């Protein structure tokens, strides 16, 4: 007898979250909570591994309460687990394990309900990735949001987390509202909430503007979570002030799941209804703008977590562009990239957590040349910076290489330099920070911002002058290793290729959900090996950019002044755009939503 695994990744953490909330009353609860939450996350990893293994053979459909479709109409709620969904769920649970391992030494003072919130967050990430029902997706979206807002504003005595949590919550609630409006429109048109059903019901009908508007509203909602321009402003405010373990999950998987939802809805519901050209050009454009804006802003930061947050913005632009190519191979690369990037970003955030642990600061200027004794952390940090830029054979390299190959094949070769530029900017910014902080290289950066964000560093952990605990270094090293494996092992690429092939097979998806047919094993796909050249160029570019910042010479004296005056205006403009005021964010949001909705009305 096979056990019903599909609901467990959601049910177990939800149950444990409630249990841990009750255990908060215990007197010596600190380690009990740590151990229990860690065990829960590990169990979820095992469930996800099993699900991934099963989904590789055939897409798994699980109807809650055994409410399977009646006469082809889905009356129940289904989890539809194809390899892509299982892969992302697995990434989420792995990152959670790393984050919880790290938090073993992170919070020395006992903090209330931290573990409950983390497990709630894990449950919602799992549910969001695995579900095949639109409204269910919305519910997990909101649950993810609520847990994340609470985690962001966790250190409620500081002003940064309050501000960040507020901005995060307002923007994401508006995003959720857009999703809800989209769901309402789709329900009015089709009378169902199951993704496969909506897709099947829309198929063959004349395209209406309402369908296009519904798609755009859903997209806008999930793009807010996905943090792409002009909906990304909340992300740096939130990710830079959240407790480090939460930042690992925010940047590593939550943002990417938003983009995954857009891709999923596009492929299952709209790919044969809507003409793809307007969607494609709009999303490619948004992706490139996001990529560049995030990269540039990352270079301008001196608050390390904020720097990493902007690098996440930049990479989510790349991921959106990868999804927007609307092609199997690009999708394969994008999935691989999400995994590779998530692990590396997690490792980098853990490194900032280690800095907080030792020095109670993540300010590049304060820390300059003060962390030279943290040799291992420093080396891993620089390695992660290179990996972020796409150094072979990390997952970022493999993913980006495959996306680039696909882009060239589709006639979008002009995207490739932009991808490389984004990698150079973000990787270079990380390398610069690492070189200065851990190795005392260079001088103080001439372009970085003058006012660092008000930090949460103060209360997060006590200052420690001892060696870095193994339990902090271990998750960092493991995450880097995972990203390494994701790029190096041919198996991971095979999984990604199969996941992409199933993902784009919309008829197979609909059949397996609505008719219960076994999805035919996808045809063997020719595997694309990404070339080494692109990755090496990007990594070399990142090193060059960091050298430009750090090396004595090029940026000193007259040359500095000239460059400074050259970039002053665009830099000032970028800074002013990222004003930190929620009102401005909402104006951007409204303009972006109006533009995309108008595009939908005009195109269909």
């Amino acid at each position, binding site marked *: 007898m096979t056990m019903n695994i599909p609901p467990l990744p959601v049910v177990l953490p939800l149950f444990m979250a409630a249990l841990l909330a009750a255990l908060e009353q215990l007197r010596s609860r600190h380690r009990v909570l740590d151990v229990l939450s860690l065990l829960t996350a590990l169990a979820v990893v095992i469930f996800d591994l099993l699900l991934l293994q099963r989904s590789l053979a055939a897409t798994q459909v699980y109807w809650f309460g055994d409410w399977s479709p009646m006469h082809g109409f889905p009356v129940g709620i289904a989890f539809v687990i194809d390899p892509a969904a299982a892969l992302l769920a697995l990434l989420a649970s792995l990152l959670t394990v790393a984050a919880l391992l790290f938090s073993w030494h992170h919070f020395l003072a006992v903090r209330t309900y931290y573990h409950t919130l983390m497990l709630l967050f894990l449950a919602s990430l799992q549910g969001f990735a695995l579900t095949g029902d639109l*409204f269910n997706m919305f*519910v997990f979206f*909101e*649950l993810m*949001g*609520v847990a994340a*807002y*609470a985690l962001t*504003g966790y250190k*409620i*005595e500081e*002003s*940064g987390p*309050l*501000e*960040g*949590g*507020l901005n995060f*919550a*307002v923007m994401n*609630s*508006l995003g*959720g*509202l857009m999703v*809800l*409006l989209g*769901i*309402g*429109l789709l*329900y*009015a048109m089709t009378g169902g*909430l199951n993704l496969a059903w909506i897709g099947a019901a829309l198929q063959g009908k004349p395209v209406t503007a309402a369908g296009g508007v519904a798609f755009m509203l859903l997209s806008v909602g999930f793009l807010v979570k996905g943090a792409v321009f002009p909906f990304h402003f909340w992300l*740096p*405010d939130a990710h*830079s002030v959240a407790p480090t373990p939460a930042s690992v999950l925010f940047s590593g998987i939550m943002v990417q799941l938003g983009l995954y939802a857009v891709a999923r809805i596009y492929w299952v519901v709209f790919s044969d209804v809507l003409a793809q050209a307007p969607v494609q050009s709009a999303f490619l454009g948004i992706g490139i703008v996001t990529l560049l804006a995030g990269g540039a*802003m990352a270079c*301008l*930061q001196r608050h390390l977590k*904020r720097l990493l947050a902007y690098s996440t913005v930049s990479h989510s632009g790349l991921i959106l562009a990868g999804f927007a190519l609307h092609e199997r191979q690009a999708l394969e690369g994008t999935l691989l990239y999400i995994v590779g990037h998530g692990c590396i970003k997690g490792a980098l955030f853990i490194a900032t957590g280690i800095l907080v642990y030792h020095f109670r600061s993540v300010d590049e200027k304060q820390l300059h040349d003060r962390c030279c004794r943290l040799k291992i952390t420093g080396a891993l940090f620089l390695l992660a910076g290179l990996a972020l830029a796409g150094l072979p054979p990390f997952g970022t390299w493999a993913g980006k290489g495959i996306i680039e190959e696909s882009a060239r094949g589709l006639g979008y070769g002009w995207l490739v330099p932009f991808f490389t530029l984004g990698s150079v900017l973000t990787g270079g910014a990380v390398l610069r920070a690492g070189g200065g902080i851990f190795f005392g290289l260079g001088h103080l950066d001439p372009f970085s*911002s003058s*006012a660092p*964000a*008000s930090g949460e560093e103060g209360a997060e952990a006590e200052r420690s002058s001892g060696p870095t605990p193994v339990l902090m270094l271990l998750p960092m090293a493991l995450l880097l290793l995972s990203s390494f494996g994701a790029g190096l092992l041919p198996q991971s690429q095979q999984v990604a290729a199969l996941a992409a092939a199933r993902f784009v097979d919309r008829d197979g998806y609909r059949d397996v959900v609505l008719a219960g047919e076994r999805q035919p094993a996808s045809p063997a796909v020719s595997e694309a090996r990404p070339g080494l050249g692109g990755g090496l160029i990007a990594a070399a570019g990142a090193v060059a950019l960091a050298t430009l910042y750090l090396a004595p010479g090029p940026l000193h004296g007259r040359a500095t002044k000239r460059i400074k005056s050259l970039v002053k205006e665009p830099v000032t403009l*970028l*800074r002013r755009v*990222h*004003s*930190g*005021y*929620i*009102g*401005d964010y*909402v*104006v951007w*949001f*409204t303009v972006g939503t109006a533009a995309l909705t108008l595009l939908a009305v005009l195109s269909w």
Partner: protein
Amino acid sequence: MNALPFLVVVWLLVVGLYGIATCRNSIYLVSALVVAQSSGYLLLLSVGYVNKGTAPITGDIPGTRIMVDPVVQALTLTDIVVGATVSALLLALALQRHKRSGTLDPKSEPPMRG
């Protein structure tokens, strides 16, 4: 079905967004967000409304009566719960900020620029 509910939906959304964009008080901001969110409830309810339909409580009414769509009502209820959670959290954050800095104006504190 007429267009009136949908016009009201758009109106509520625009008013709510305007309120959030211009507000100088965090409590007011949360209220404006609630106004914007109510456009979602109205849209769902009007999508499922049937002329002269009764409440969808199947135990009490004869099988021949027309009911309004119960699914959208369930969705609306779910969303109201979610919305209430978020509002409560936001209000707690706003209160905390007031305790810390003695003001509710989002623009009064220097934000994290750039």
